[in-house]
């Protein structure tokens, strides 16, 4: 006896009424790729996610649909996850003091007071 479903596609499969609940024997891993997406000309490529693919050629083909199907996109990159080199989480501290170095920020340079003081002094001299 096979399963009769409301879904005609399911009925066509003639599935056994008592399905097998054993685990499937094979784990068929494909490789993992990271996907980068450029929304429009001039934009940065942004990381949008990952996917499984047997190779890089196929990865681009699959990325096009999974990551650009519903979005504006002009270009895509894929990189094997194994090839991405990252900083270690415990090394987060190497980035810590960067925001404090105001000598590298425009906001670290305020001279209005000095100019005004100078102007005032000049007026007095006259």
């Amino acid at each position, binding site marked *: 006896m096979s399963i009769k479903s409301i879904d*005609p*596609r399911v009925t*066509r499969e003639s599935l056994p009424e008592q399905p097998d609940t054993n685990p499937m024997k094979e784990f068929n891993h*494909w490789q993992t790729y990271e996907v980068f997406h450029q929304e429009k000309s001039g934009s940065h490529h942004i990381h949008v996610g990952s*996917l*499984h*693919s*047997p*190779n890089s*050629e*196929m990865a681009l*083909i*699959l990325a*096009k*649909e*999974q990551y650009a*199907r519903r979005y504006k996109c002009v270009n895509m990159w894929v990189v094997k996850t194994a090839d991405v080199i990252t900083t270690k989480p415990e090394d987060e501290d190497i980035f810590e003091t960067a925001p404090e170095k105001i000598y590298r920020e425009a906001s670290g340079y305020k001279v209005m007071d000095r100019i005004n003081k100078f102007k005032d002094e000049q007026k007095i001299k006259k």
Partner: protein
Amino acid sequence: MNISKSEIEAVKDLIYRMADDELILGHRNSEWTGLGPILEEDIAFSSMAQDKLGHAQALYQILNKLGDADPDTLAFGRKEKDMKCCHLVEYPIGEYDFSLMRHFLFDEAEALRFEMLSKSSFEDLANVAKKFRGELKYHTMHAEIWIEQLANGNEESKARMQSSLNECFPLALGIFEPSEFEDILISSNIFQGEKVLMESWLLKIEEILEKANLKIPDVSTLTPVYGGRKGYHTEYLKPLLDEMTEVYCIDPEAEW
């Protein structure tokens, strides 16, 4: 373009063939949604099925402009004998090897046909052909990579691809079933015709199939599967149409 009555008849016949092919194949391919061999590919295949339906709708729109019914009525309201699709697209989805091979053989023809039509003297058709060029480029890229990779995969996938090719090939020749309007279409520069299309198609697929190390059936030894363009269909079309129109037929006048 000043178009004569006989030219209209010719272009309509052409568009019905194309639109019906796209509708039926799009419908067939949509049957894989959620049931594909791997998630990423499921998404891709289903997306292309949607594209096909979009092409069908745009083509029926042209027919509507030429005085025929609206796209929904044309797609959902016609009986089997009035459909002009080829047998290839009617076949059930089978296993993934069959669906992929059908996708490859059909989409290569579609891409070439649209390329030819982008220069058509019949402006509406040329515009539709140009519009979908990018989509079809992706469809053929997708098909070619899958065919090549599976055919060069392992023993099993090689065997499956070869046997699908053997099965699909005579059916695919039915895409190019000769048309009684061939001469008018050529002389009015609407379309260069099925014969020319088939020749370019053969060259294109041979190129890919060689890379895939697949044995190409000898055209001269095959009987192409004709009949679809004249309204003679496989046993699969009527059940497909019944299913496709089940809800629509509850009330064709209703707005869904």
